[in-house]
């Protein structure tokens, strides 16, 4: 019986590859946007402006504290009543970018805070402007503690992207659901789904492990 289903599964392989491509596209775009927004917010979150810090903090809490599916629904179904019409794909990318940005924001902020205060003091004493301090002194050092969890976050992003199948984006998970109706061997179908995610995530996890090792070697005992 497994052999029969297996052949069926092979026939579905093209749609799985399309799903894979969709997952990669949604995750990839969100990864870029989320990283940029996350860095900007993280820098302000670690900064001196109290109001900005509080606002960003509240935003992070809200995003971290509610289920992602609800966020997707709000962006896709409720924003239209405010006049913002979105395609499923762009809604998915926006929701996912927003989610990722909120996590990256925290990672970046704690990376910046972890840079010894003496570093920015030395730079202040030398007359570097706040932006110069950030750019030349603090961020390069913070990257050491930011990079490993950042890549770890990318792995979560890829896996969270499966939620957007609820609004009709045909990603790996959705293809899995569609296929399981024909090939009722759920274990096998979702095994393949797992395998495809594994194929994306495993290199990322290794990358994060590698970065972590490298960063600790480079780290100095100041």
């Amino acid at each position, binding site marked *: 019986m497994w052999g029969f289903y297996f052949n069926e599964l092979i026939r579905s392989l093209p749609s799985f590859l399309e799903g894979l491509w969709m997952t990669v596209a949604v995750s990839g775009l969100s990864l870029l946007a989320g990283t940029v927004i996350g860095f900007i917010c993280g820098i302000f979150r670690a900064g001196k402006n109290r109001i900005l810090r509080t606002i960003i903090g509240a935003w992070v809490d809200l995003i971290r*504290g509610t*289920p992602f599916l609800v966020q997707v629904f709000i962006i896709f179904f*409720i924003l239209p009543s405010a006049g913002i019409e979105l395609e499923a794909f762009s809604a998915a990318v926006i929701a996912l970018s927003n989610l990722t940005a909120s996590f990256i924001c925290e990672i970046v902020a704690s990376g910046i805070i972890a840079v010894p205060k003496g570093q920015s003091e030395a730079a202040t004493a030398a007359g570097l402007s706040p932006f110069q301090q950030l750019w030349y002194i603090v961020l390069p050092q913070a990257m050491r503690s930011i990079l490993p969890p950042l890549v770890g976050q990318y792995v979560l992003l890829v896996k969270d992207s499966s939620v957007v199948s609820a609004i009709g984006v045909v990603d790996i998970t959705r293809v899995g659901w569609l296929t399981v109706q024909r090939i009722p061997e759920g274990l096998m179908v979702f095994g393949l*789904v*797992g395998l495809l995610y*594994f194929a994306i995530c495993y290199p990322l996890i290794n990358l994060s492990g590698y970065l972590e090792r490298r960063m600790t070697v480079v780290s100095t005992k100041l």
Partner: protein
Amino acid sequence: MLEAFNFRAILEYMPTYGQCFLATLWLSALSLFGAILVGIAACAMRLSHSRLLSGAAGVYIESIRSTPLLAQLYFFYFGLPTFGVMLPEWVTGVIALTLNSGAYYAEIIRAGIQAIHSGQIEAGIASGFSYLQRMRYIILPQALGMTIRPMLGQAIVLVKDSSLLSLISILELTRAGQLLTSERFMPAEGFLTTAVFYLIIYYMLKAFSGWSEKKLIFREAH
């Protein structure tokens, strides 16, 4: 979709929400507790000198981290009966959540342990503590104290992931929202209320972690 927002219907479903809220609470609490224990054990194995133990823990951690929880959940629910293991839904759910978060906790605790000043371990050795005693009395309390924040993050992920348990017929918070959606066709009411309940859990966890952080973290002796 928000024009007809119906508070009365929400009130009507409040008993269901309350019941499901409690279910989510205790399922998550149980899994959280288990996950931390599993995490400690897996981390101890990962850091042990035995290649076999460390390798086994490595396989466990990486395969969990690079596949979606959904696939794992189905594996346990539909896979285990094939091997003659029949467990109640909630046990399956708790096991899946525990093993899933356990892998993440192992990584978090490992980072915490590796961040402990080597002098602490040496002081323990010099006092004549055995390996287990050092772990138990010196390293773990500090590692747990230092990793409260990432542990909180994972706890939040766990709580939200518990929504997947509705797929294997466990009544929990997400399910309550879906009832309102599918019986009354009131998606906005259903999902927003669900989100509010999750937010309540989030703030409870956050307050708890803030409290325990104050209690557990003592600044490194200068």
